Structures are given as structure tokens and as C-alpha cells.
């Protein structure tokens, strides 16, 4: 039963990931990404990590990909891009080299490892720790690793403040961003790029 679910989900995840790479239309690529994220959510459920599965759907599928779609639709790049242009020269050969070396590394790890590629498997499931999944996760995050969580929150706050500082246009003596003279009005402005990534 578990094996069957794992195989089906892996097929969904992998086909979605391939679709993201192959699809010509950016909106279709984003939809394939959603497919991948859903497959991962089901895999989380298979591992008894139900809270993570819910968060996966709410945050990734429900918010982040929606924002991707938003940007794609608002910038009007939802038609097939010309894939003939290489923005950075030598990008394609480099991709092949790096991609195949990472694949090789992973396969080697899988083959030579004794106790599984990720070490001895641990679990935050209800069976192993007692208490519910969500409680265990909350305890781990906000009790054991509170400092790291707070640091991450600070980092995110800084990122938001930075994005706002980049996006607003100030008049008068304070002018943090030099206004770039773009030749083509159709291109997205540099501020927009900062928001997206």
C-alpha cells in the first residue's frame, strides 16, 4: 500500500518537474510546479507529517505559485518565450556539466551509503514521540530552536523592508535608487525583478 502510494506520488512529482522544464508557456510551467508540490504534500502525508503536508499546500501551492502566476500575468510574459536566446554565454554547456555532476554525486551517495542516503531515519510522527504531529513540530521550532526561528523572522522582516525601500519612489533630496533610463518601455523595471525573486 505504502509502496504503491510512493510510486504514484513520485511519478506525479517527477512528471510535474519535467513539465516545468519542458513547457513553453510560463503559466503551464507554473501549473506543473503546482502538480509537483501536490505530489510532495501527499508524500509528507505518507510519512505521517500531516502538518507539513497542509503547510505545503497552503503556503507553496496556495500563495507562492499564485504570486508567480500574478507576476506572469501582470508582466504579460504569458506567451511562449524565444528559447533561442542565451542571456549568459556558455550557459547551456555549463548546465549540462553541473547537472550531470550533481546527478552523479547523488547516485554515488545512494549506492555507497550503508544506513540510507540521509542517515538513520528519524521521525516526528505521533507514534514515535507521543503527542500530535503539530505539537511536536511547534515544540521543536519554538522551544528547541527558538533562536534560529527568530533570526529567520528578522531576516524576512529585513527582506520586506528592503523590498518596500526599493519599490517606493522618493522625491526630494533623499534618492536611494538612481533612476535607470530604460530604452524599452515594455521591459519590467528593476524594482519589479527585486520583488519577484
Amino acid at each position: 500500500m505504502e509502496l504503491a502510494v510512493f510510486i504514484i506520488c513520485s511519478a506525479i512529482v517527477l512528471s510535474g518537474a519535467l513539465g516545468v522544464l519542458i513547457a513553453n508557456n510560463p503559466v503551464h510551467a507554473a501549473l506543473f510546479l503546482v502538480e509537483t508540490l501536490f505530489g510532495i504534500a501527499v508524500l509528507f502525508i505518507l510519512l505521517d507529517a500531516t502538518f507539513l503536508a497542509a503547510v505545503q499546500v497552503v503556503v507553496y501551492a496556495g500563495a507562492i505559485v499564485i504570486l508567480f502566476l500574478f507576476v506572469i500575468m501582470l508582466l504579460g510574459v504569458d506567451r511562449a518565450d524565444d528559447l533561442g536566446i542565451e542571456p549568459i554565454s556558455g550557459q547551456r554547456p555549463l548546465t549540462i556539466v553541473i547537472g550531470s555532476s550533481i546527478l552523479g554525486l547523488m547516485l554515488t551517495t545512494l549506492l555507497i551509503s550503508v544506513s540510507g542516503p540521509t542517515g538513520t531515519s528519524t521521525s516526528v510522527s505521533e507514534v514515535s514521540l507521543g503527542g500530535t504531529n503539530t505539537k511536536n513540530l511547534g515544540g521543536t521550532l519554538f522551544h528547541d530552536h527558538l533562536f534560529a526561528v527568530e533570526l529567520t523572522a528578522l531576516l524576512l522582516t529585513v527582506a520586506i523592508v528592503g523590498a518596500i525601500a526599493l519599490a517606493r519612489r522618493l522625491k526630494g533630496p533623499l534618492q536611494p535608487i538612481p533612476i535607470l533610463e530604460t530604452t524599452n518601455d515594455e521591459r519590467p523595471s528593476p524594482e519589479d525583478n527585486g520583488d519577484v525573486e
Partner: protein
Amino acid sequence: MMILGTDPLLSGNVDLTVVLIVLMKVGIAFVFLLVAVMLMIWFERKLISDMQNRIGPSVAGPWGILQTLADGIKLFFKEDLIPERSDRFVFKLAPYLSLIPAFLVFAIVPIGGDFRNDNGGVVTWFGRETLVQVADPPIGVLFFLAMSSIAVYGVMLAGWSSGSKYPLLGAVRSSAQMISYEAALGLSIATVFLMSGTLSTNGIVSGQSTWNWNLVTTGVVPFIIFVIAGTAELNRPPFDLVEAEQELVGGFHTEYSALRFALFFLAEFMNVITMSAIAVTLFLGGPNGPILIEAIPWIWPPIWFFLKVGVFLFVFVWLRATLPRLRYDQLMDLGWKVLIPASLGWFLLIAALNIANDQGWQSWIVILVGLTAISVGALALMAAIRKAKMQRASQAFEEAN
């Protein structure tokens, strides 16, 4: 597998009876939703006619009650158009992305069950103990949030794939609205989690079995935020900018016709019913209520549940007949500058009270300090907004001159 949760039906041996009971529950939920949508559309049209001094549907069946059925059959047999410039696959997919989450959410709502004496809603059907809900997953209400975030895709992709400007504008508007209000919705639900200490709907309802409804224990504010944010999430008036006829023709479903339009319509009304059911579950004690006639105790919980849901449905129609539509900037202001800060502040207050209970602090001091902190924060926020407005106004003035 833990995903199906605490239902005693599935903890033992799964044999044919168990499978049949589960199938029966799914069938009942499915048929119930379809019939409820049919009645709800009729109810809304009839009620709004009364409020506007009209008669409303009156020909098909007694009091026009079969009007929805007639409309459904008409839509079913109409020609199905697909715009030439549309993205055909996504165009066909979008209505189902709206409809399926609407169906699924209802699975976690307990519509009956015996919650007296810490019974946990367990009833006995055909010699098996079970809960009167299709599934009780441990993530409970998070499932509802997940499904409502999936429903955004239906609206967004429908608008985009139509390949025309009004649907696209409607889709961008509505998805921005739904994402903004989802945050307030989630935060108001989080206070309920704090009070009941569980995510499961069955657990939340069990915790309210002695008249201690979450409406009171969370202090009313989260309930108000939930209802406002829920109305916006449903794209119901006064938050129906998505389908503002004067501006956007029909909004995201302008290009849809026949059966696909009917699916969107169905999903919309189904969402109204499930949102009401979720509100009842979270804040109004679900099927809890007094057992009036002891001879048939099993019939009272569903009756109380449907009565409470009916109150919400009435209120939704009432709002539509009463309130004018908000402007887009007012909508965003209300969501981001009022509802989200208010729900965050209230969440912190409830959390502080919980800790005060654990540590044995004086709760009135905590409330006083908490309310002071919240009002200081609110004042700071209002000052910041005011300052920004003044700055923008003076900038606009400079530019104009």
C-alpha cells in the same frame, strides 16, 4: 494511516460494512450539498425579492422552488462555447478547480453526533461506532484553508485562459482579494486553535459541548473578523468586486457559458454553504444544542446544525440586499490595515491569557496590559497610515503645480 484521523470506525478492522458506511457518508454529503445549493439559490432569489418588494421566482413548482432545477437543465442543454483565443485545456480545467475544493471542504464538517458527556460525537450505525462526518483528519481546519487556497486557482486560471481583458482583470482582482483575506481568515481561526488546543473539527466541536461556544471564549472579535473575511473570501457582496457588472461585465467567468458556467455557479453557492458550516463548527458549537425530546435524541444535533447554518445563509443574503459594494482601495485597506492587525493583536491577547492561566497570573492585569499594548500598536499604525497619506497628498499637490 493517520490521515483519516480519530474516527473509531477506521481504527479497527476494515471490512465490507465499514467500506459501505464510508461510501454512504460520502454519498449523503454529496447529495446533501447538491440539494442544499439548489435550495440556497432559490432561497436567495426569493428572499432578495421580498427585501426589494418583488415576487421573485414563482412559476416552477410550489413557490418557484424548482426554478433552480429548471435553470440547471437549461444551462445543461445550452451550446458550450470556447473562445477562439483561449487556452483550451486550462479553460476546460478551471471550473473543476473551483468545484472540487468546494465539495471536499464539507467532508470535515461534523453535521451531527452525540457530544454529550464527553462522548466525542460518536454514534453507532449498523453496529459500528463512527463520527457523523466524512473524515476527521488531524490537520482538521487546515484542510479547509488548504482547499480555499486551491479554489483561487479556479478563478485565476478561468480569467487568464479566457484570453480576453475583462475576465483577466476580474481574475487578478479576485485572486488578490482572496489571498489578502485568507491571511485574516487564518489568523482568526488560529485563536480558535489556541482555545480548543486541537486542529481537528471533531475536537473543536467536542470542546464546545457545554454551551462554552468559541464565540464567547475567544471574545467575539475573531468571530467578527472570520465572518467579514469569509464574506470577502466568497466574493459575496459587499465584496463582490470580482463580478462588478458595471465595470467587468461578468468578471472572471464572462466567457463561460452553458455547463461550465453552471459549474462555477454551483461552486460559488456551495462555498457559501460550506463557509457557513465551517463558521458554525468553529464558533457556534457545531451540532451542539439541547436535546428537547429524549425519545429521539439523534435527530436534534443535525437540526441545531442546520438551523445555525440557516442563520448564516440568511445573513449572507441580507448583506447582499443591504450593503453597497466597496471600492477596490477600501477593500485592500480593510483587509491589510484593519483585519490583519486586529486579528494578530487579538491572537496575541488570547495567547497571553492562556499563559496567564498556566502560570496562575491575575488575568485582569494581563487583559489590561494586553489591551493597552494593542491600542498603542493600533495608534502607531494609524499614525503611520495618516503620515503616509499626508505625504502622498503633498507629493501629488507638488506634481500638479
